[in-house]
Every structure is written in structure tokens, then in C-alpha cells.
């Protein structure tokens, strides 16, 4: 076995191909990053400069199929799907109550940038709507940070006692949590006499965003879109960086073999908590962003379906793969907010029927999850290793055989 030294030289030639593997992935990342930026800039420029002067038909077409609101929503969903991806895709923990973090983030926006708490008047870089001088009005960046921190804390509070459970139990606890938080929001108009959430009426309006003196009014959708795209971009960056570092390795190790990971000095609780907290932060930031997008917070919107839709985005794209999840989020968010309705309209007009297309989203997301798990567990743009993990059962026999072959070859080699 003392061949290490001899192999030093050999290694260098092999290492070149190894390095190129790493380079491959980084050049892939560069290509995707470029694509993302180009797409965002294109959408912005077209909407900001071309659409206002475009012919009526083009305007209508864009508004029906690729409206800026839906684009902004897609960016928010990319942000949240990537957050969930850290929990489900990287660390392998099934979280079925992710909507809770979205809700908490939304209410942070409701609390900190609206006239809702009219008992106080506090303005710090905020932008109170006309006629609503009271309440708390903070600058949107501060609210984004506050939302992130607030949900991160909640992530830790929820995670600390539950993350040591088996994966399927964890799924249930998170599901329960995802039910409790929205119910609290619905019932929260009278917590010991204090109106905390305004119940099912929700909190609105949430202040318009104002950055460096520029106000993003209700019609400044292109500018808002740019802000959400920047947030999504930051999450992409964070996801890629974390994956290649100390935490990312520990998460992948836990996903593969928790026990072995702990025996290699990885503190399970802390590492899982970190993934949970990062995921929660993204959910919270997404919640704040969404509240500013629709200009309000409504308790009923935070239901179990949303958790499943976000999970579907992660599954469809390929658990753990940043770009896959990004595409999954883009596609499913679009289907959910635009596609189903518009295709339904066309279908109904063409056939004279009256099919309620949006009601099919149960079927679509259900079938999608089942089929993906049955036939393409690795998602559509899988990371090589995810493909292997998700098909472990099928590959097991093959790899045993190859192991044996290699072992025999090895014997030859060693017997010289």
C-alpha cells in the first residue's frame, strides 16, 4: 500500500481531469448565471421601455401571458424554492410547512411597513401612504432584513426541538407548524384583547417601496421586478457558495448517512439547524417581498397547498440543484399564477366548454409529485449525485457487480 509517493506524479495527470470536472461545474454555473442576468435585464428593458410604446396587441399579449406581476411573483418563488432547497435538497430534511415562514415574513412587512399599528407613529426611512401617517414605517431594506432575522429565529425555535426526529416525523411536525401559524394569523385579531394580525381581513395596504428617494408606486412593476430579481439572484449566489463550503459538505453528508456524519465529527443538530435557519430566512425574505408585491398580507393565502407547490418546485427541478430548482420554480409559479387560467380561457373559448382550469392544480401538482417520484426522482436537471441517491435501489445491484469486477481487477494489480 505504500504506493502513495509513487502516485504523486501519476496523480497530477489524473488530477487535471479531476480539476476539469470542477471547472466544468463552475463554467456551467457561469453560463447559467449569465443566462439568468440576461433574462432579467431583457424582461426589465422590454417592460420598462418597449411595452409603454408598443402596439396594443403586444401590450395585451404581454399582460396576459407574461405580466410583470407574475414575473415578480416568479422571482419571489425562486427565492423561496431555493430556500426550501437548502433544507430538502441539501440536507435531505422533508419540510412540509414551509408556508409558515412565508406567512411570518409577510406579517413582518405588515407590521413594520404599514399603518396597521396606528397606536404608534414611527417612521424610519419608510414611505407612509397618504392619509395614513400613523403606524410603523421602516425602509424596505430594513424590513427585508428584519423579516429574514425574525423567521431565522423562528426556524431555530421550531427546529431545535424537532430536528432530532426521524425524517418522516419531522415532515409531520413541520406540517403541523405550517397549519398552526396561519391559524394563529386568522385568529390573531384578538390575542388577549390585542389586535395582532387583523384576522382574516389581513393587513393592507403595505407601504409602497421607496429606495433612495425613488418611489415604486403600484404601477412601477418593472422596478419592483428588478428588486425581486436581485433578491432571487442573491439567493442563487448564496446557494452555490454554501454548497461548495464546509456547511454544504456537512449537509450533503447528513443527507447521505446521518450516523456516519456524526461519527465524523459533524454536529447533527447544529448543522441541520443551520440549514433550517437559512431556509427559513429565505422564506421570510420571500414573505416580505411578496407582501410588497401584492401590497398586503392575507392570512388565507398561507395554506398547505403553497407548501406543496414550493416542494414541487424543488422536486421538479432536481433536489439540490440550484439551476434546476430555479427552472422548476419559474415553470410552476407561472403555471399557478398565469398558465392555468390563460390556457383554460383559450380552451374554453375554443371548445365552448366551461372547464374550471385553476381547480386542476390539485391534480397537476399531485400527479407531478407522484410521477416525478416514480420515474424521475432526480428531477429534470439533476445533479449527478442526486440522480445516484434517488435511484440507490436500482443502482445497488449494478454497483455490486462492478465492485466485484473492480475487486477482481484489483487483486491482479496487487499480486504483482
Amino acid at each position: 500500500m505504500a504506493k502513495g509517493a509513487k502516485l504523486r506524479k501519476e496523480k497530477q495527470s489524473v488530477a487535471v481531469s479531476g480539476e476539469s470536472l470542477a471547472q466544468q461545474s463552475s463554467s456551467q454555473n457561469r453560463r447559467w448565471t449569465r443566462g439568468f442576468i440576461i433574462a432579467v435585464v431583457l424582461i426589465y428593458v422590454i417592460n420598462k421601455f418597449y411595452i409603454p410604446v408598443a402596439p396594443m396587441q403586444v401590450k395585451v399579449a404581454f399582460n396576459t401571458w407574461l405580466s410583470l406581476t407574475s414575473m415578480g411573483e416568479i422571482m419571489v418563488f425562486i427565492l423561496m424554492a431555493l430556500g426550501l432547497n437548502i433544507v430538502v435538497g441539501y440536507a435531505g430534511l422533508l419540510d412540509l410547512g414551509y408556508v409558515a415562514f412565508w406567512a411570518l415574513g409577510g406579517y413582518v412587512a405588515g407590521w413594520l411597513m404599514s399603518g396597521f399599528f396606528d397606536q404608534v407613529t414611527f417612521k424610519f426611512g419608510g414611505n407612509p401612504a397618504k392619509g395614513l401617517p400613523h403606524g410603523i414605517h421602516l425602509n424596505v431594506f430594513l424590513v427585508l432584513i428584519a423579516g429574514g432575522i425574525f423567521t431565522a429565529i423562528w426556524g431555530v425555535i421550531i427546529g431545535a426541538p424537532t430536528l432530532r426526529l426521524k425524517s418522516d416525523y419531522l415532515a409531520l411536525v413541520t406540517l403541523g407548524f405550517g397549519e398552526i401559524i396561519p391559524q394563529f394569523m386568522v385568529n390573531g385579531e384578538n390575542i388577549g384583547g390585542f389586535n395582532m394580525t387583523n384576522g382574516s381581513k389581513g393587513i393592507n395596504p403595505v407601504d409602497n417601496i421607496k429606495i433612495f428617494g425613488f418611489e415604486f408606486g403600484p404601477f412601477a412593476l418593472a422596478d419592483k421586478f428588478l428588486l425581486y430579481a436581485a433578491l432571487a439572484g442573491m439567493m442563487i449566489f448564496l446557494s452555490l457558495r454554501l454548497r461548495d463550503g464546509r456547511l454544504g459538505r456537512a449537509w450533503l453528508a447528513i443527507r447521505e448517512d446521518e450516523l456516519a456524519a456524526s461519527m465524523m465529527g459533524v454536529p447533527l443538530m447544529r448543522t441541520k439547524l443551520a440549514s433550517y435557519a437559512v431556509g427559513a430566512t429565505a422564506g421570510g425574505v420571500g414573505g416580505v417581498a411578496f407582501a410588497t408585491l401584492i401590497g398586503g398580507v392575507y392570512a388565507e393565502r398561507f395554506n398547505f397547498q403553497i407548501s406543496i407547490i414550493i416542494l414541487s418546485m424543488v422536486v421538479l427541478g432536481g433536489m439540490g440543484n440550484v439551476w434546476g430548482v430555479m427552472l422548476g420554480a419559474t415553470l410552476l409559479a407561472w403555471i399557478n399564477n398565469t398558465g392555468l387560467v390563460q390556457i383554460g380561457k383559450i380552451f374554453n373559448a375554443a371548445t365552448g366548454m366551461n372547464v374550471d382550469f385553476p381547480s386542476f392544480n390539485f391534480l397537476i401538482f399531485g400527479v407531478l409529485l407522484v410521477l416525478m417520484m416514480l420515474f424521475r426522482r432526480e428531477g429534470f436537471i439533476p445533479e449527478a449525485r442526486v440522480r445516484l441517491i434517488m435511484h440507490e435501489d436500482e443502482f445497488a445491484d449494478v454497483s455490486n457487480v462492478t465492485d466485484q469486477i473492480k475487486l477482481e481487477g484489483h487483486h491482479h494489480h496487487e499480486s504483482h
Partner: protein
Amino acid sequence: MASTTASAPRASVNVGKLLTRVSMLMLGIVVVYWLGRNLISSPAQFFTVGITGLSNGALYALIALGYTLVYGIIELINFAHGDLFMLGAVFSYFFLTKFLAAEGGSARNYGLLALTLVIAMAFCATINVVIERLAYRRLRDAPKLAPLITAVGMSFILQFIGLKWNGSAPRNFTTILPNTSFEFQGVVVPYTALIVVSLTIPLLVILVTLVNKTRQGRAMRATAQDKDAARLMGIDVNKTISFTFALGGAMAGAAGLMFAQSYGTVAYNLGFQLGLIAFTSAVLGGVGNLNGAVLGGFLIGLIQGFNDGLPFGPGQKWSQTMVFTILILLMVYRPAGLLGKATTEKV
């Protein structure tokens, strides 16, 4: 190597244990005070809501059995099970109330009710077996995440079927079971509660006997412990698992019918919340333990009944929160449930 004494040790174990004990004790005191105060101030109401709770608990127990049977044998939380119950309820409405036009309590209708009970059970059993056959079976050796996500997807598909079948609004109808009640010492006892409980108990007894006493039951227990060993002993593992799903489905079908008949309403989204409550019951009793599921069902029913109905308490709007808080506390402090055993991983 299953044992609580050998489960993963932690340095903070003593501090943690002490904290757990103290917080559990405090929680216990709060609960006792809450129940005690209500019992003293309005005893009749206390027992009235208790009886409603027990009647609901019987339904939870039936649904919980489906979760526990399946979890016991293939370690899968079958998220679709609650929606199977919903389909059972919707089916029984369409079959009994619409197709057989059985409304109101005549002798003929009671006969049809018994018939529908059997058919609804067969209906849900079939669906459950088909789901297992088409989806879960192919994922039996896959990483745990895969069947779990599949079950969530199945739940959505069943909900969709319910939505298209039943419509988006709840349907109300006249039941066969009387919606009247009698009073005993001020305690209101609905007849449906009596009927539901007296129908549930024989079902539970039959099921437990089936699992504990018959050859098929032995095969189930053997498969649950070790599939490979069971196979070597000549047990048809696939058939046994199908049988388990059939049993669980049948219980959900029975629960569906009884729910429809005691409340006179069905809706496509019944399954999600009742399913979760039933699952909490299963966990409370100890997942995989039949007696535990029954005990858990009745306990959760009682707790929910008290929460919803007692004059001095959180009230119905916190019902869900109450149940899920119990679920979370349980998972955190006693994941093995009341009657279950903790397990550790083999190395």
C-alpha cells in the same frame, strides 16, 4: 437492538430531562386545573362535550388505525389516508343518499345503511390497495423521501377526485341516523354518538382479532418485523402488504360513512384536517401499535371536545392549533407515543 436505555446519549441529557419533567408537570397542572374548573362550574356541559368528543374519537380511532397499520408494515406515513376517508364519506353520500335515495330513518334505510357500510369499506379498501400497487410498491426500497413525497402527491390527487365529484362547496343532506338526542341528568347524549361508538367498537375488535389471531395477521406482523425473513418463511410479502392496505382502507371507508351520517355534510377538503388529527391520534398512542391508535383516537377526541365545547377554554377556533400543538409536543418529548417503543439504528 431496540431499547430506550441505549438510545443516543447526550451530554445535556440530565438537564434536558429535568426541564422536560418540569414543563410536563406544569402542563399537567394547567390541564387538570382547566378541566377541574369546568367540571365544577358546569358539570352537565362537561359530560356533554365529553360524549361528543368520544364519538368523534371513535372516528379518529378508525382513521388512525389505517395510518398505524401502514406505518407498522412499511414505515410510511400515508398522507393520502385522510383523503381516502374523505372519498369514503363522499362515496357514501352519493351511493346512499343520492343513488339509493335513503334519507330519514326508516327500516329499509337502516338496511341500506348496513349495505352501504360494507360497500364503502370495500370501495376504500380497493382504492388503497390500488394506490399501494401503483405507487408505493415501486418505491419500497427507495430513499424515504421518495415514498413520502409520493404520498403527499397521492393526497392531492384524491382531493382532486373529491373536488370534481363532490364540488367545491360542502353538501348537506338528511341523514338516516337521527340527529336528535336525549337528556340524562342534564347531560345531552346525541343518538348518533351512541350509534357511532357502538358500530366502531365491534369493528375495532374484529380488526384487532384479525391481526392478533389469524394466519394473515401473523404474516402481517412477521412482515412488519423483517420483510426478508418473512419471505424466507414462505410469506407472500406483497400480498400481505396489500392486505394491510385493504384493512386500513376499509376502516377509512367505515369512518367516512359514519362521519357523513353523523354530521349530514360532506366536503372535498374533509380529509386533510381529519387526517392530520387522526394521525396525531396514532402518534399519541404510538405509531404501529393498534391499541395505541384506538386509545389515541379517543383521547384526542376528548381533548378536542373539551377544547371546543367547554365554556372556559380556548374555544373552537383554536381547535386545530390545540391538536397540532399536542402533535408537536409529543414528537418532541415522546415520539414513541404512549404505548410505543423507541428504536435505535443498527450499526
